[in-house]
């Protein structure tokens, strides 16, 4: 198939043929893939599609194949966070989002590659090897949900789920020229999402277009009593699919166009903002003075939480286990052999930041900065409807270019992490190319105001053709 098809197109195909045929054609495409986006293709996918065929295609996603990031628990289907330490771990339960997708008739196609434990911006730290960007096989797809973005861009799945702790949906969406949303914290249940930094992350869908994002959101968002941070709030995201931004006020935070920004990226984003003006919106520059501290705050909080979240991987109950004469030796060796270098770095830094004597200086300080960053958003969004900025300061970099320089990798997250610190929603949509590589426009909204950013993104899509550009091989 290797073509971009949206959900309504897929449903038409299913009506014309069958869910089984559609799923089979995707599996065939994946079989020929060169991008290493999938880690596992589900043995059950065909059966699930067949069952949907026999049940008369009920549900809003009946027969629609979907790819799932390696860190979202799928019953009976390997879920490893792309880490050796979870080798062989098959969850005995489905994440909340998987239950919802299955109930809506979606077919779980398989699991997608990611940076080990979602710690990265390039999907190079995976135990399964890197995923390649379909636009340029020498470049990274972004991360950490690199597999989820790349398989959608390559036409290997129409939609996918990723997770976004500090930009992990939006970054690969931008790098691979697809749409990805990081919903408001609390919007989608995290039950079954293997935690990296629980106070920051949300599951988010990726798709080739905004309408499909809204369709998936309608299925997976909503209250779940098993996640205490989940919010009980009804919303229909597809109601926001209107081509109308007249009178919309856009804020453009100047701090998001800082040092090191790629010229073409800057131009593409400003061209987009002009387009919004043409469509009837207005913009003003806003200042978010604490942006420069966000990165440090983000990494300290994320690493601190990670150091605790990842403690359970000790070889006792599941996953990889090394040999040892006693439990402590076994657990230590398991962790030494099972985690990759970036994961170890973050666990160590997080452990350090929480240690007696440093806790106040680092962790507590980072929480205080987080409050200031949040206040920046509250202030800026008090006067405008949405904020717009480049998702990533530059397009996808070359594989191997930054992997030995963690700091430069961390710096790439400068425009995405403040959003997670604040917990607000943000969507990344394609808005142009820079030297042939996609550029993402980030549209940020108020807490639980996904519908406004979806409306803005949808309107933009209706009035531009960026989203119709395909990677060379898929076109």
């Amino acid at each position, binding site marked *: 198939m290797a073509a971009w098809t949206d959900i309504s197109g897929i449903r038409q195909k299913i009506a014309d043929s069958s869910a089984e045929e559609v799923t089979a054609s995707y599996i065939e495409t994946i079989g020929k893939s060169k991008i290493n986006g999938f880690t596992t293709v589900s043995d059950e996918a065909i059966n699930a599609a067949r069952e949907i065929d026999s049940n008369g295609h009920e549900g809003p996603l009946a027969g629609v194949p979907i790819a799932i990031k390696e*860190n*979202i*628990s799928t019953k009976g289907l390997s*879920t490893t*966070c792309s880490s050796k330490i*979870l080798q062989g*771990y098959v*969850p*005995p*339960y489905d*994440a909340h989002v998987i239950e919802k997708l299955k109930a809506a008739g979606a077919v779980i196609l398989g699991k997608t590659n990611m940076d080990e434990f979602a710690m990265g911006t390039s999907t190079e730290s995976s135990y399964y090897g890197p995923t390649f960007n379909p636009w340029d096989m020498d470049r990274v797809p972004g991360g950490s949900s690199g597999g989820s973005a790349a398989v959608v861009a390559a036409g290997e799945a129409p939609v996918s789920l990723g997770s976004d702790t500090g930009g992990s949906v939006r970054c690969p969406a931008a790098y691979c020229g697809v749409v990805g949303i990081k919903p408001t914290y609390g919007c989608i249940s*995290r*039950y*079954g*999402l*293997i*935690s990296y*930094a*629980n*106070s920051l992350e949300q599951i988010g869908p990726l798709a080739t277009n905004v309408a499909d994002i809204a369709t998936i959101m309608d299925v997976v968002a909503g209250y779940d*009593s*098993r*996640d*205490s*941070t989940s919010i009980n709030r009804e919303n229909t995201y597809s109601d926001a699919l209107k081509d109308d931004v007249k009178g919309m006020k856009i804020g453009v935070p100047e701090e998001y166009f800082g040092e090191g920004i790629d010229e073409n990226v800057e131009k593409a984003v400003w061209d987009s903002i002009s387009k919004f003006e043409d469509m009837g919106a207005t913009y003003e520059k806003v200042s978010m003075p604490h942006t420069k501290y966000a990165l440090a705050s983000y990494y300290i909080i994320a690493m*601190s*939480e990670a*150091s*605790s979240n990842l*403690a*359970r*991987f*000790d070889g*006792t*109950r*599941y996953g990889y286990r090394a040999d040892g004469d006693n*439990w*402590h030796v076994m*657990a230590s060796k398991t962790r030494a052999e099972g985690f990759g270098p970036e994961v170890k770095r973050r666990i160590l830094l997080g*452990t350090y930041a*929480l*240690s*007696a004597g440093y*806790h106040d200086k680092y*962790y507590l300080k980072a929480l205080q900065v987080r409050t200031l960053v949040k206040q920046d958003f509250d202030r800026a969004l008090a006067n405008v409807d949405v904020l717009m900025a480049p998702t990533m300061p530059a397009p996808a970099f070359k594989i191997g270019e930054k992997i030995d320089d963690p700091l430069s990798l961390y710096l790439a997250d400068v425009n995405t992490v403040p959003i997670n610190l604040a917990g607000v929603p943000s969507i990344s949509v394609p808005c142009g190319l820079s030297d042939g590589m996609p550029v993402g426009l980030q549209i940020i909204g108020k807490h639980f105001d996904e519908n406004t950013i979806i409306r803005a993104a949808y309107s933009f899509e209706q009035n531009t053709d960026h989203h119709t550009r395909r990677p060379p091989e898929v076109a």
Partner: protein
Amino acid sequence: MVYENPDGIRIGLEVHVQLNKLKTKLFCGCSTEYHDSEPNTHVCPVCLGLPGSLPVLNEKAVEFAIKVGLALNCSIVEQTQFHRKNYYYPDLPKNFQTTQYDFPIAANGKIIIEGEDGEHVVGITRAHIEEDPARLQHMGTIDRSKGTLINYNRSGMTLIEIVSEPDMRSPKEARRYLEKLKSILDYLGVFDGDLEGAMKADANVSVFWGDRVEVKNISSFKGLERALVYEIMRQKNHIRRGGEIVMETRHFDEARGVTISMRTKEEEHDYRYFPEPDLVPLRVADWVPGIRETLPELPDAKRERFMEQYGLGETHARALTTEIKVANFFEEVAAKVDPKDAAVWVSDILKGELNYRELSIDAFTVEDIVAVVELVTGNKITEQSGVEIIRTVLDDGGKPQDIVEKKGLLKVEDDIVATAVEEAIAENPDAVADYLGGKEKSLNFIVGKVMQKTKGRADAREAREKVLAKLNE
């Protein structure tokens, strides 16, 4: 009399109480009734700490904890906050324990115990909620084990850790404190102290007002007293030999009755506490007045009332109010018979027989003890027969009345014989005179009359002895 505390002993206790009367675990819906179940049958992704699982706070557990806090005269926190205590141990499925840190559910309380010199106040520093780890079963001893089995049934059970001030001055006071605590918890109906793992204590002990040593792994009242006696002796001997007490953690080896050094202060864990991001604060300030209203009459108040209302002495009142079930049992009995008799029979006799058999008050009915007391006070049986009835009910079953009959315990039989003897003597003055005059055979005549009067129910030999006794008066 004021207790001088000559050795400068200070003991503080950290008591872990499993709130096993809750229906479900602290952060998941798993049933708490695992005590008679196969290992690892009361588990789910949450209490197994599976990747991606999230905790959801059991509100009933918070309610129970507030109840405990109020009963210990504590102030209650405005809203709950949970922290992660990070350390690696095979009984922890997540390698951190979700617990409370700087905002415990309850703090600044006190309880009153019977101290070395009368009533003694022990301060309660704090009480906090935390999750119980899994149960490790070492194949062999803890230091030499071939392997360890893990049973996660207990994992995620609600614990409340109650930390006292170092206000106890002797092992006896420590034991009294623990007993009082158990009594209060028993009244609240939040835990069943008879279940395995229901109550565990760590003790902080110092002598001569010096540095403290923590003794872990104490699981019984008896164990507590033994551990403390040993530890105090060890510290005193060590100082006498010129040694110095260093802050350390020691393990109580119950089998050998000794404490063994585990680690010194320098080796203490850095638990890297931080707020649990997966739980949101729960505002409970508004719950407190309502929960306070549900608090039952507690042991101290009940003891006072028993003394006043039933005219009991302090010893009886104390013994009858330690366990709520016993107190309620007593009150039912006291409603039917003289309360003082009820106190004697329930507290002195019945409880003694129950303790001897390691039975609880549930093994006896109010109806049966009332029957026994009425038989005794009605002068129908002797006290000794009353005790025998209680023993028989406990050992062989049956109802008191049936036992009286079966065993012929009725004093009434004696009365009939005695009356017949008196009548026979009074009605036959000639025979009496003959006997007193030396005619032995006249005795047989009188006994025969007694047998006639009792229609043969009296034992002939017994009748003869009674007649003899009467004639020789």
